[in-house]
């Protein structure tokens, strides 16, 4: 009953979101597009990094790979095929990175993934300057922002569906086991290396697709734009704010932070990054388990208090 209701409510929300471009202007559609983009990025990031606690800063590496693939191929291939190629490149890079780094634990993994994003940016820059002789590419497509938005919305729905299915299956349990203690997980019979690799690859392919779908929005692309490390940090902090271990956590974190960042970058363009940094620190200190974790904790405490109180009242009455 509750499941059927939630599903209907969700379907209604997505239908309303899909219809939004007909009622909003170009600005409104562009705004929603950016929002859905970050919701998808944060959800895809949390798919792997949430339960396993492997904090990845490689988000922008895959995002940029997606965007660049489109910039290079959009004139020669049909747009759906460009997306397939981008996803495949993302997959191959994810598997290579995963095989070589998922043995790294904790902070080493964080640093490696951060370095990876920089490395790929440098390689693309080098290639463009020395081989193709240009830095920056123009990207003119024959469809408007609403088409980009619809594609992103579909990808967002798919990402949340994957997150839901993984959580419900035994692989959701597997990822939590990996996050808690990989040695115990292995000794329980879980092939940890394979599970980590598969989920890292799935998450990375979705992130690549976000970059690929959003690329036409810029009309001009260069490495400093699509490989901007701020994208990795924003994704991370959005997932953490909402609660990276929960299905709806990244959504809950991404919406308010996206609104805030839009407002900040419009009104305080010079102090934007300082405020961003302070916010990162505040979130990690105040809400280590995210908003949903915080609410859940207080909700259970409240209920425990209440039931204890009512027990006491009953006893006094009796």
């Amino acid at each position: 009953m509750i499941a059927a209701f939630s599903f209907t409510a969700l379907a209604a929300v997505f239908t309303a979101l899909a219809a939004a471009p007909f009622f909003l202007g170009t600005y409104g559609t562009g705004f929603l597009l950016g929002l859905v983009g970050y919701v998808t990025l944060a959800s895809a990031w949390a798919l792997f990094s949430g339960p396993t606690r492997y904090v990845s800063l490689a988000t922008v590496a895959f995002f940029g790979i997606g965007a660049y693939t489109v910039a290079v191929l959009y004139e020669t291939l049909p747009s759906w095929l460009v997306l397939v190629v981008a996803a495949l490149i993302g997959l191959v890079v994810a598997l290579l990175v995963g095989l070589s780094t998922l043995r790294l634990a904790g902070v080493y993994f964080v640093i490696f993934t951060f370095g990876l994003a920089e490395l790929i940016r440098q390689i693309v820059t080098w290639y463009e300057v020395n081989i193709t002789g240009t830095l920056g590419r123009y990207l003119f497509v024959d469809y408007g922002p609403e088409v980009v938005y619809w594609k992103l919305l579909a990808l967002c729905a798919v990402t949340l569906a994957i997150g839901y299915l993984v959580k419900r299956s035994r692989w959701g349990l597997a990822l939590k086991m990996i996050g808690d203690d990989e040695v115990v997980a292995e000794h329980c019979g879980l092939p940890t290396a394979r599970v980590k690799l598969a989920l890292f690859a799935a998450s990375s392919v979705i992130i690549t697709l976000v970059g690929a779908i959003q690329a036409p929005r810029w009309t001009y692309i260069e490495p400093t734009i699509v490989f901007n490390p701020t994208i990795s940090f924003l994704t991370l902090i959005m997932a953490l704010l909402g609660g990276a271990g929960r299905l709806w956590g990244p959504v809950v974190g991404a919406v308010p932070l996206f609104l805030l960042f839009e407002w900040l970058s419009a009104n305080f363009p010079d102090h934007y990054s300082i405020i961003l940094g302070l916010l990162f620190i505040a979130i990690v200190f105040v809400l280590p388990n995210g908003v949903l974790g915080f609410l859940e904790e207080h909700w259970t405490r409240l209920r425990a208090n209440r039931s204890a109180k009512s027990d006491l009242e009953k006893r006094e009455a009796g």
Partner: protein
Amino acid sequence: MQDLLDVRNLTKRFGGLTAVNDLSFTLRQGEVAALLGPNGSGKTTALNMISGFQPASSGTVLLDGERLTGRPPHWISHAGVARTFQLVRVLSSLNVEENILAAVMFRKNPPAKETAQEEVQRLLEDVGLAGRSNENAASLTYIDQKRMELARALASKPKLLLLDEWLAGLNPSELSIGIGLISNLNEKGITILLVEHVMDAIRALCPRAVVMNAGRKIADGATAEVLRDPEVVRAYLGGAHAVA
């Protein structure tokens, strides 16, 4: 009876240090044996190599004739080896039930979820944790964490159970409960290898003992005789006592 575990010339070197040196022994199906030795004699390292936690430098481990060495721990777990850890390791973000469910759901041929949950309840009863399903695993007392770890090891339906100082740190009444639990398991046909320092438990549970010192096997046989062996006494107490 047939040999279940066959350890041949097992060796582990850490740089210049040889932690386990040419260790060989076998365990029969259904046997309970102790692996003894002073601190640093290589017992835990030997256990780690059998369970796949650490790779062997050389030598082989066979279970039912199947080679375990060179395989990852999850493969060895599927082959039928389960273990507990010297320092209890719990999956701290999971509750008690989920800690056991984890091992049921990822063993070889896992059951459907409903069957698995019933099985978890039986395992919790077996180790004395009935009705504690929803408690946070990290906030259990030490003995209860040990019980949970044992249930988790049993959840993978092992042929061979490796217990690394599972009885250490228990008070006398907990100790007798623990000894009872282990002997029950053995009656169910599980072969058990214990690394242990608690002598009362060793005498009560293990008809046989293998003793290591400085990485080498120095004795192997009936527990009472092995404990009288002059070389074993010397290893535990030092040379001066053995002469007297």
